[in-house]
């Protein structure tokens, strides 16, 4: 076949086809035995880094992130720099993004980065967004953390981000955990207003899961899976109610533990094909320019 995509390649690209190696093993069997997941592509849509001194009780560096990805079988991750989220000056913001870029350069086959938009540094943050237009920059999306910045979802600075993301068809990862029940409907309306932007609700949803009717009504709205704890059967229930194609695997590492976040999805009572969509297939559709499998 020339000039087109073979069906097998298409399925593989969406994570629906098991990889050749360990093709007979299921995600669950590999996790139960503590092996790196090789049954499908695993893509982490929500990771973090922050270089801290050796010996830290809570290491958060890129080396540790990659080590954990290797142990778990996570092929690629998209991270935001914690120092970018916490930047209170333009220089800090730029430095954190420079470091993000450098980390991606060193780990091109495994990592991509988010631009963290700090709404209280709106002009400087807006300039930082332009890094996303350079395909070699290593940036693949935008991270918004409204609760930590105490900034409204519909605020002027954020609307500039939505316009940019819409214009360039970019994903926006939005931390919604503390936004309360009223937060997601607001974001759903914003997603409808900017249909080319893909919005990922970070940390599922406070409570049992995102409202299925909102996800169903908003084709560009997704929810990621990371949260410090999971109710019994929570992931299976969310996938059943919202549809596997709307849920995106995420660890929140190096904030949260990698293996626990992988296991809660991988061991969920969800059909293997759906699990593969959640673990990687959906992210491969959402993020442009993720490292190809062949680059490993």
């Amino acid at each position: 076949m020339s000039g087109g995509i073979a069906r097998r390649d298409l399925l593989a690209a969406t994570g629906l086809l098991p990889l050749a190696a360990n093709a007979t093993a299921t995600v669950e069997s590999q996790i139960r035995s503590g092996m790196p997941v090789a049954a499908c592509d695993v893509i982490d849509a929500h990771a973090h880094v922050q270089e801290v001194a050796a010996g830290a009780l809570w290491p958060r560096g890129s080396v540790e992130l990659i080590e954990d990805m290797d142990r778990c079988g996570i092929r690629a991750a998209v991270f935001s720099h914690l120092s970018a989220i916490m930047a209170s000056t333009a220089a800090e913001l730029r430095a954190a993004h420079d470091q993000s870029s450098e980390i991606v350069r060193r780990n091109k086959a495994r990592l991509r980065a988010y631009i963290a938009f700090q709404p209280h540094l709106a002009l400087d943050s807006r300039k930082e967004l332009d890094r996303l237009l350079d395909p070699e920059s290593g940036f693949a999306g935008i991270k918004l953390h409204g609760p930590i910045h105490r900034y409204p979802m519909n605020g002027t600075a954020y609307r500039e981000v939505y316009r940019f993301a819409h214009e360039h068809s970019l994903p926006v990862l939005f931390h919604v955990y503390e936004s309360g029940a009223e937060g997601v409907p607001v974001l759903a309306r914003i997603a409808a207003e900017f249909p080319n932007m893909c919005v990922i609700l970070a940390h599922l949803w406070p409570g049992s899961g995102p409202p299925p009717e909102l996800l169903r009504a908003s084709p560009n709205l997704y929810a990621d899976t990371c949260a410090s704890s999971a109710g019994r059967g929570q992931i299976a229930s969310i996938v059943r109610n919202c549809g596997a194609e709307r849920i995106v695997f995420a660890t929140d590492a190096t904030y949260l533990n990698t293996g626990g976040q992988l296991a809660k999805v991988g061991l969920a009572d969800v059909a293997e094909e759906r699990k593969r969509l959640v673990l990687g297939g959906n992210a491969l559709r959402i993020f442009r320019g993720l490292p190809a499998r062949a680059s490993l």
Partner: protein
Amino acid sequence: MPALRFFDCDVMLGRTLVPGPLAIPDARRLLQEMDACGINACLFFSYAASFGPEASDRMNELTRKAARESGRLVPCASLRTSPFSVRENLADQVERIVDGGFRAARIVSEEGPAGIPVSLRLFELEELFGRMAERRLPLLVPCEHLPGQDAMLAYGFEQIDSVARANPELPIILLRPRYSAQAPVLALLRRHKNIRVSMTLLTLFRQVESFAAEAGTGRILFGSHLPYRDPSVPQGSLLYSKLGNAERSSIAGGALEALLEGVR
């Protein structure tokens, strides 16, 4: 990597007053749940909503009955922390608990706004804890509330510190300390060798490894908090930890098994 045998230190059977969606009503259902989750054995108690301190007796009867269904179900008593009858000595329950086949005892809070907050005040419970220490009967203490304001009403870190200091032979298991309570929990672990923690909510990046490095793997225990929480999160944290096989086995169940064997 050899398969880990999970011995869960934190499981509840039975229905609460306000029904939870995933309550485990009986032993048969609990065993099915354990099979589905890859859990070999559990230290469990049967909850029964009831008014007054005699609730513990009812819970313990139900727990004993459920434990008869399988050797995989290891009974944990509900500890009475306030007297029911005139001139009752709370310490006397320890013999009944141990002789009744229970391998540990836990604090169980009363449900509802009228429920009296549980206290671990030494002037109230000194003899009880002393007797438990003599029998090496582990005391399980739920700790999720500790970083918040509820600790002002019930027990807080200070009371746990006092109990551990007064009873160095009393094994104390802190159930579900939140990751945000890392600093005080680490301080307690450094200060008291008789304190252990369940890893249920130690969900920060490499937190299990850090705690193991601080306290030794013998003091970190696998706990799921079934039926409320999914065991997969602590299981995955352990399966993919940087720890060696022996350390993982210890946390998965070896340390709890050894601790319960010490009851005399």
